[in-house]
């Protein structure tokens, strides 16, 4: 039996947010460990290609401009206090990354160079070719090795544990290599386990993005917020939905319909291809729906950029187009379409990463923190700007780590019993004991994914959402009958698939509940039965609380507005 030491700060997920949190908590003197279902450098932060935003004053940029464009991009659903924190901290956090060893591209003066990204008038996106996330991830892992912070690699979290006072006091997890369970006691837990892309099929997200952290926190009593805000990225490949970075358009690529028309001029006359993602994705979908696409796609045109430029600045997608679409970007048009990419919503936190409210305006789970895509501060509101997600992980990962370390100093060690593991152990034993020709988890996941992609996508309406809700309810009812044939303890990936499916079904239910509740169109949530944004009634967040065995409980929280009153949103 494994009995790990008690930690001040235990972090679930070792992508950018988790590792940044670990490093900052460690610097505060806290005892820290990370627990992750994949090796840290296999995390999905790898997939962030294009860059990371910051307004550096010495480049003639202003943090207020970055903040405003983020707020406008969010369709005024972002909490402006959080956006101000993000934009003000950005410069310092990026220089810190550079000092840690991230090899950002330079301009001719030898300074950090920038490129343009969508929804922003100024070039303020810092980048490492088109593998910025990967470069950052590997450097943070270097820092983790240097600090000798323990990492429980390939451990799978099954639930959070609360003490008698309802304070989050640790978690239950098992080691994938042995199947052995352990109870982890911790004064604070930071959830930084990434997104939920696999709820959809297809999705740009990696196969590990199964909403585990959101579901585990949700089940333990933390509210999920803005869950209806699911971003469809404008440029994904047909088939498996692989991502083509927005940097392609940032560097000058066009979007064309089958007539060769740069159609964005009809939808966003000023910003064209670099309007915010929800706007571009809707435009593409309209082109496709009205017959101006080809085989369900429109085209990305990079030909005028030239081969050398493509190889240098966009090398990853140049290779990706070749390998996965058999297209030579320097010579041919690349068929692309909108595809599920990012969850703006997540576990509700404040600007310090706390999943409970110290001002008493909403309920939550004391002792729990969250950062990154798992969390919802709310920074991104109805629509995230490209290159703000990496920034989110770095700024709010750091802040969550600091706050958790400081908070841990003020509270006693947790007291929870080893019996907290029993329910999860029993569940695993039950799944393993199931015999006969039950349904396979993959079959249910595919049904869930195609349902979500059909009814809860770029365009939504009441009837479709109701249909989706019924489908997901039916799938939840079938989940207890899912059967796997691998009965072993060692690296039982079938078992992992069953557990992940359970998490994803809870996330799907929350997304639909949010989408049914919000009777307006805002950001990524476009209702064909409620075409307009309705600031009178809907300048508020939807919070969802888990109710075992029934629909989520809904609550509302007004949007925090500091200096930018909602305006008509035109690009």
């Amino acid at each position, binding site marked *: 039996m494994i009995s790990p030491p008690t930690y001040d700060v235990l972090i679930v997920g070792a992508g950018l947010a988790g590792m940044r949190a670990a490093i900052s908590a460690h610097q505060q003197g806290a005892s820290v460990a990370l627990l992750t279902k994949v*090796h840290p450098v296999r995390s999905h932060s790898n997939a962030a290609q294009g860059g990371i935003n910051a307004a550096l004053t010495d480049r003639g940029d202003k943090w207020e401009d970055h903040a405003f464009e983020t707020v406008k991009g969010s369709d005024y659903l972002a909490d402006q206090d959080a956006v101000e924190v993000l934009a003000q901290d950005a410069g310092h956090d990026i220089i810190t990354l550079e000092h840690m060893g991230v090899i950002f591209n330079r301009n001719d003066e*030898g300074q950090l160079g920038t490129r343009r990204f969508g929804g922003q008038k100024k070039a303020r996106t810092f980048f490492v070719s088109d593998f910025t996330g*990967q470069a950052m991830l590997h450097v943070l892992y270097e820092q983790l090795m240097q600090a000798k912070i323990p990492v429980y690699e390939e451990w799978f979290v099954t639930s959070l544990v609360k003490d008698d006072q309802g304070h989050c006091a640790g978690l239950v997890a098992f080691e994938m290599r042995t199947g052995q369970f352990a109870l982890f006691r911790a004064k604070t837990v930071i959830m930084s386990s990434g997104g939920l892309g696999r709820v959809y099929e297809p999705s740009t997200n990696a196969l590990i993005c199964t909403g585990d952290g959101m579901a585990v926190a949700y089940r333990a009593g933390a509210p999920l917020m803005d869950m209806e805000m699911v971003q469809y990225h404008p440029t994904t490949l047909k088939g498996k939905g692989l991502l083509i970075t927005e940097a392609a358009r940032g560097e000058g690529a066009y979007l064309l319909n089958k007539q060769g028309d740069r159609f964005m001029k009809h939808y966003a006359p000023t910003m064209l291809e670099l309007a915010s993602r929800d706007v571009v994705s809707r435009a593409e979908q309209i082109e496709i729906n009205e017959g101006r696409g080809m085989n369900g796609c429109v085209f990305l045109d990079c030909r005028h950029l030239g081969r050398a430029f493509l190889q240098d600045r966009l090398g990853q997608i140049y290779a990706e187009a070749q390998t996965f679409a058999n297209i030579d970007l320097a010579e041919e048009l690349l068929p692309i379409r909108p595809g599920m990419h990012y969850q703006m919503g997540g576990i509700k936190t404040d600007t310090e990463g706390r999943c409970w409210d110290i001002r008493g305006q909403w309920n939550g789970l004391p002792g729990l923190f969250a950062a990154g895509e798992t969390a919802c501060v709310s920074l991104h509101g109805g629509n995230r700007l490209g290159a703000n997600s990496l920034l989110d992980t770095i700024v709010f990962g750091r802040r969550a780590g600091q706050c958790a370390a400081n908070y841990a100093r003020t509270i006693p060690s947790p007291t929870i019993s080893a019996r907290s593991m029993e329910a999860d152990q029993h569940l695993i034993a039950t799944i393993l004991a199931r015999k006969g020709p039950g349904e396979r988890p993959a079959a249910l996941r595919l049904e869930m994914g195609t349902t979500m992609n059909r009814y809860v996508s770029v365009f939504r309406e009441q009837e479709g959402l109701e249909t989706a809700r019924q489908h997901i309810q039916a799938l939840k009812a079938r989940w207890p009958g899912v059967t796997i044939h691998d009965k072993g303890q060692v690296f039982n990936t079938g078992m992992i698939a069953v557990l992940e499916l359970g998490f994803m079904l809870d996330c799907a239910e929350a997304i639909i509940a949010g989408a049914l509740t919000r009777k307006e169109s805002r950001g990524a949530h476009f209702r064909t039965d409620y075409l307009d944004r309705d600031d009178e009634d809907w300048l508020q967040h939807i919070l969802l609380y888990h109710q075992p065995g029934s629909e989520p409980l809904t609550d509302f929280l007004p949007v925090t507005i500091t200096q930018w009153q909602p305006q008509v949103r035109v690009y």
Partner: protein
Amino acid sequence: MNSNPMHTTLRVRRYNPEQDHPSPYYQEYDLAFDPSDSVLDGLIKVRETIDDSLTLRCSCRGAICGSCGMRINGHAALACKTKIISVAPLGETIDVEPMNNMPVIKDLVTDMAPFWEKIRQIQPWLRPAEPAPVAEYLAPPESMNHLAGVMSCIMCGVCVSDCTVLEVDTNFLGPAALAKAYRFVADHATSPHQTVWRPSMNQAACGIARAVWNVFRSAQKASGRWIELWHCDQRAWRATYHPPAVPGMQKYSRTSSSIKAF
């Protein structure tokens, strides 16, 4: 979807440590495939529809996470990046085996701990000789582009799997760790005089770096990234590295940045 799909056979090396007398064996799976399918797509199809006990690591499907390194027809590669049609154009049987030069945990899942231990041995983190400037380090764009080439290594272990030197000398650091070291050795802007090789540097290992160059190059080609290990090979002889003068470097001052950031 093609109404008359092509077929292949995946001949997978299996190993289940929980069997009474565990020993590796081969199992064949007949598979219908689409021309766009990768070997990983095929394996996932087997796992999801035929045999959920078939065990492998995979995540991104796009050759960036480095999870699905394995041997395909004897050569290490990323399964997600290897098209079925490219290795079995006529539907030939495809041999799929775990990576070489590392212990097998189960089926295609290998123990990467020795791999990471060697990465740790070179102490791959930036230790600036002087306090960092207030703003960023100033550096020529081309030198940063050059380093980015090394930074783009995804640490999948494929080059280690195919390394013939490791087969005869397990103490050899291996190509991935050497490439990682090169990132620090060659960094003129942020870590001049940084000593990365220090005590852990095995001089014999440096000597045979040249011998693995061909292996490494082929592995790197497989992952689509070009890393100039040649430089690494030449410079790795020195226990402490002093960067040579780089043309144009003089115009960049490292510490006297005029930038007033933020």
